[in-house]
């Protein structure tokens, strides 16, 4: 083993190059810090390599393929269509993932961020070891940022191996499975269910709760459920996965539901029941960094840990495990590490699910205003009343605004339907900036667009709807 004899001095040391770490590195460099980033696997972290990005690529491919299978009202007919999944995977890997991660690496270099390959391990509050194969070096840092992300949770009797796969395995299948069993219908499970459903798989989802897509309410997910049903997806709720038995050809999953034990047989079993923070193999016990019971690192609103010069962001700290949360915290941390009096003062955090019919939510919901007993209401404008949606033949879903009765302030919004992922931004901007129904009504929205339905929804909330 080659062991660096002397500690290498570093100003700002960042561990992990996901959407938390790489964004922090670039911003810190822009603010004048000398930055070293340590990565044990791939630049870009989970999100760019085996998360947000490759999943959206497969989802996109699935959309086109399924459009061709289901026919269309536009008068376009297709005699035969096939999917060559090897090509799909090559495109996803070479044209999407590698291009994007290559781009991030170039950006890091452009900003003179030093990239160190290897696994970081804290020796104490001031130094980490970085181990890369037989190589080991000590880095002594002035400031460090922990952005080591998370990994899939494994459950008993479902060890990841062979045909029992995690999300990474599901993203990298060589063929479209005939039957994919998915344990856990959260956002990751439901997105992959939609992707493979569209690519031609039979799908079975086994979910512990009484509904999938936890975090989105029943009314909101109804169009998604209808769509799953129409496509033959089987959803078993309030079920407990017991065990998986695999052969070299298939896997049989045993689960309990309705008080009975059942089995289902498929090509692969994806287990997507949650993620755990990568804080257990970092040597944090050698530091004074405080962890919560669930292994999350405790931070203040400057993303500072209990060790003042060590910061943490992303999936290793509290809050939803979302890439944009990691990146936002990254910018706060980068500024704070640069000596600025920076705080995370965000009001709302949007979440999106790229299910076959897209979902998006931000801020208050019908449930939360009821629980909090807010003097607020909910107004729902259907895409069925949208001219633009009709021209797209995508009229399922709605835009829902949650507004404060006394002031007309917009305090929440949910969207299910076409372009929900992009439409939620305007409403997030409105909420974050304290805008009211009136401010949306008095902003001219172009016609015909899906965006103008936000204006329609505001008019509905104001009691003066035009199109319903």
């Amino acid at each position: 083993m080659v062991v660096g004899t002397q500690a290498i001095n570093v100003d700002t040391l960042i561990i992990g190059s996901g959407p938390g770490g790489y964004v922090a590195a670039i911003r810190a460099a822009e603010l004048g810090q000398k930055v070293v980033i340590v990565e044990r696997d791939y630049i870009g972290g989970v999100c760019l390599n085996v998360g947000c990005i490759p999943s959206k690529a497969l989802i996109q491919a699935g959309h086109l393929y399924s459009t061709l299978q289901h026919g269309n009202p536009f008068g376009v007919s297709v005699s035969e269509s096939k999917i060559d999944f090897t090509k799909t995977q090559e495109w996803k890997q070479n044209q999407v993932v590698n291009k994007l991660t290559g781009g991030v690496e170039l950006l890091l270099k452009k900003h003179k961020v030093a990239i160190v390959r290897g696994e970081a391990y804290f020796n104490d509050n001031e130094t980490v070891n970085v181990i890369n194969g037989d190589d080991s070096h000590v880095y002594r840092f002035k400031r460090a940022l922990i952005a080591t992300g998370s990994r899939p949770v494994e459950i008993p009797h479902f060890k990841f191996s062979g045909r029992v796969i995690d999300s990474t395995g599901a993203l990298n299948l060589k063929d479209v499975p005939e039957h994919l069993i998915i344990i856990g219908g959260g956002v990751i499970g439901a997105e992959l269910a939609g992707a493979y459903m569209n690519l031609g798989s039979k799908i079975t989802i086994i979910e512990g709760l009484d509904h999938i897509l936890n975090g989105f309410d029943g009314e909101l997910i109804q169009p998604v459920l209808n769509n799953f049903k129409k496509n033959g997806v089987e959803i078993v709720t309030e079920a407990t996965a017991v065990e998986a038995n695999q052969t070299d050809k298939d896997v049989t999953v045993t689960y309990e539901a309705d008080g009975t034990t059942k089995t289902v047989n498929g090509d692969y079993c994806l287990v997507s029941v949650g993620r755990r923070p990568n804080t257990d193999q970092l040597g944090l016990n050698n530091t004074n960094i405080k962890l919560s019971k669930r292994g999350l690192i405790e931070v203040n609103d400057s993303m500072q840990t209990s060790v003042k010069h060590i910061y943490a962001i992303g999936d290793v700290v509290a809050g939803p495990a979302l890439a944009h949360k990691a990146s936002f915290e990254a910018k706060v941390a980068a500024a704070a590490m640069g000596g600025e009096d920076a705080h995370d003062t965000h009001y709302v955090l949007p979440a999106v699910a790229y299910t076959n019919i897209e979902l998006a939510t931000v801020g208050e919901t019908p449930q939360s205003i009821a629980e909090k007993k807010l003097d607020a209401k909910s107004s729902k404008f259907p895409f069925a009343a949208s001219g633009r949606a009709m021209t797209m033949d995508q009229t399922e879903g709605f835009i829902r605004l949650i507004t404060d009765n006394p002031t007309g302030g917009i305090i929440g919004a949910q969207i299910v339907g076409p372009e929900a992922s992009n439409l939620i931004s305007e409403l997030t901007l409105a909420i974050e900036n304290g805008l009211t129904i009136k401010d949306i009504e008095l902003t001219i929205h172009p016609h015909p667009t899906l965006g103008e339905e936000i204006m329609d929804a505001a008019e509905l909330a104001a009691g003066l709807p035009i199109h319903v």
Partner: protein
Amino acid sequence: VGAEYTSNGQLLAMPSVREYARKNDIDLTQVPATGRHGHITMADVENFKASPAPAA
């Protein structure tokens, strides 16, 4: 460009406040602003309405 803007075309207030001022015949250029970015808030307009600055 009406009374909703400064002489160099900058917005004085967001649309709901502009509309409220118009309806109450209040010239926004006369209202002291306390909002973010020097914008006039709804409260600013209400305060101004309650005790308009004496015409010089």
